[in-house]
C-alpha cells in the first residue's frame, strides 16, 4: 500500500491557479522530497494533503484512508510540521509535547516516556520546563518536530523544516528525519535546499507553477541533464563574461571569486578557457569539472519561474 496517494489535486485562489492537477504517489518507507521555487504550489499541496486546506478537486489517501471523508482516522496516521505553524509559546516544551500526545490518544505513561526520550534526543531535556516563548527559532522548531513525532507516526510530513535554522538545529532535524525513516516512517518533505533533498530523498518531485514537472530519484533526474556539466574556474584577476563566449558553452555565471561555466562538451570548453586565458595573459588559479547536479536539474525544470 502507498503511504500517500494524492490524485488530481487542484486549488485556485480567485483567478490564480495555485495547484493544477497534481498527483503524487509515495511508497511506504521512502523519503520523498518536494522541490519548487517560491510560489510554485508546494505548501498549498502539502496543506491539502494534511487536510488543512480543502481542495477544489482531487483526493488524498493516507495509508488508504481518505483525508476528506475520514479526516480523523487519516490525521491519526500523520505527524505534520507546517511551514506556517508553530507550538504554543504560553506552554512549556514539556506541556506542548504532552498536549500533542493527548490528541493522538496516548496514555499518560506512554506520553511521558516518549516526551522524555524525544526531548533528550533533540537536546532540549534541560529546557523541558521552560516556556517556549523564551526559545530561539531553532529550539521552537525542534519542539514542533517533537510534537509531530511523539506518536511515532507512520507518515511524517515536513514543510520547509530547516528553513532559517542554525547549523546545529538543522543537523538535528535532518538526523531526526533519518531516524524516523529508519524506524519505519514514510517521509514527505518540502525544501528549498537542493543538496538537502539530494542527500535525504529517495524520490524527488519538482513542482513549478502549480504543476509537477518531474518525479524521479535524484540520480535519475541528474542524468536527465547529463548533457549539462560545468567547469569551475578562477583567475588571478577579474574577467568579463565575454571571455567564455565559445561554441559548446551554454552560459557562465560568477560564483563567488570563481566562474561557473556550463557546457555540454567539457573537453572543448576547458581547451577554450585555457587558450583564452593565455591570450589575455591571465593565470588560472584553480579549475575543476563537475558532474551535473540536482540543482541544475531544478534550474532547468523550473526555468522561467518568477523569482
Amino acid at each position, binding site marked *: 500500500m502507498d503511504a500517500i496517494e494524492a490524485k488530481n489535486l487542484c*486549488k485556485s485562489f480567485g483567478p490564480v491557479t495555485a495547484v493544477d492537477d497534481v498527483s503524487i504517489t509515495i511508497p511506504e518507507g521512502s523519503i520523498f522530497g518536494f522541490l519548487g521555487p517560491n510560489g510554485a504550489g508546494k505548501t498549498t499541496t502539502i496543506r491539502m494533503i494534511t487536510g488543512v486546506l480543502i481542495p477544489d478537486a482531487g483526493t488524498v489517501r493516507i495509508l488508504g484512508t481518505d483525508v476528506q471523508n475520514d479526516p*480523523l482516522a487519516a490525521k*491519526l496516521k*500523520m505527524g505534520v510540521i507546517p511551514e506556517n505553524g508553530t507550538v504554543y509559546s504560553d506552554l512549556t516544551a514539556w506541556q506542548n509535547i504532552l*498536549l500533542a500526545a493527548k490528541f493522538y490518544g496516548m496514555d499518560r505513561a506512554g506520553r511521558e516516556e516518549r516526551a522524555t526520550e524525544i526531548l533528550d534526543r533533540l537536546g532540549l531535556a534541560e529546557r523541558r520546563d521552560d516556556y517556549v516563548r523564551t526559545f530561539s527559532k531553532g529550539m521552537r522548531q525542534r519542539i514542533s518536530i517533537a510534537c509531530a513525532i511523539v506518536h511515532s507516526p507512520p507518515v511524517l510530513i515536513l514543510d520547509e523544516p530547516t528553513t532559517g535554522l542554525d547549523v546545529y538545529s538543522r543537523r538535528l532535524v535532518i538526523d531526526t528525519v533519518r531516524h524516523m525513516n529508519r524506524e519505519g516512517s514514510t517521509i514527505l518533505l518540502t525544501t528549498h535546499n537542493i543538496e538537502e533533498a539530494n542527500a535525504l530523498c529517495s524520490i524527488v518531485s519538482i513542482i513549478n507553477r502549480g504543476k509537477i514537472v518531474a518525479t524521479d530519484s535524484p540520480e535519475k533526474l541528474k542524468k536527465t541533464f547529463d548533457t549539462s556539466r560545468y567547469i569551475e574556474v578562477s583567475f588571478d584577476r577579474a574577467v568579463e563574461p565575454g571571455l567564455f563566449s565559445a561554441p559548446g558553452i551554454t552560459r557562465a555565471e560568477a560564483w563567488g571569486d570563481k566562474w561557473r561555466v556550463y557546457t555540454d562538451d567539457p573537453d572543448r570548453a576547458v581547451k577554450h578557457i585555457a587558450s583564452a586565458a593565455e591570450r589575455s595573459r591571465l593565470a588560472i588559479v584553480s579549475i575543476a569539472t563537475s558532474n551535473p547536479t540536482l540543482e541544475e536539474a531544478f534550474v532547468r525544470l523550473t526555468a522561467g519561474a518568477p523569482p
Partner: protein
Amino acid sequence: MTDYATFFRSIAVITEKNMRIYYFKGPVVVFGLLFPLIMFLTFFIGRNLDLVLFFPGFLGMMLFFTASSVGPLITPWEKREKTYERLISLPVILESIIIGDLMAGAIFGIAITAIVFTACAVFFPIPLASAGLLGLGFALGSVAFAALGTLLASPTTDNPSNIMMLSSLIRLPLIFISGIFIPLSQLTGPLFLLTSLSPLTYLVDLFHAALNGDAVYPPWIDMLVLLAVIILFVGFAKVIQKRNLVKGI
C-alpha cells in the same frame, strides 16, 4: 466521521488547551470579569434599587459577559501566533475546534458566575424559586453565549483586538435591551418588542423564573429560544470557518 472516540477526545483536549492558555489573558479578564463588575457598580450602586428584583438581570449579565469573553480571543490569537495551522493538522475537525472553544467559554462563564452567585447568596437574602431552572439557565445561557463568542471569532483576522472591538460593539448594546436595567415586567409596547429580539432577554427571564418566580415568558419558551440561539450561532460559526478553510485563510 466514524471515529467518535477521537472526536470527543479532540474536543476535550482543545477545551483543556483553551482553559490553560486563554483564561488569564488580559482581554478575557477585562471583558469577562471587570466589565460586568463595572457595569454593575455603575448602574446599581448608590441608586437605592431593589437588589432582589434586579439580581436575575445582574446574574444574566455576568454569565453573558463571562461566557462570551473567551471565544472571541482564541482563533484570532492562534492565527496571529501561528498555532492555528498546527492545530488543524492534528487529529481534529472543524466541529472539534468550534465545540472545544465553546466549551472553554461555557465553563469559564459557569465557574465565575457560580462564584459570584454563591458570594451574593452569602451576603444577601436571594430567593430561589427553582434550583432546576437555575441550573438549566446556567447551562443553556453559558453555552448560548459561549457560542456567540465563537461566532464572533469566526471572521478572518489574525488581530485579536479587532475581534474584541467587534465583540464589544455587539455585546454592549444587548445589555441595554434585555431587561437588565429595567425589568421586563415594567416594559411595554415597542420597548418590549425590542427586548424580545435579544437572546439575553430570555436568559434574564429564565433567571427571574428560577430566583424570583416572576418571569414574563413561560420558562419553556426561554429555554427553546436559548436552544435555537445555540444552534444558530454554532451553525453560522461552522459555515464561516468552513469557508475560511476552503479559502485557506
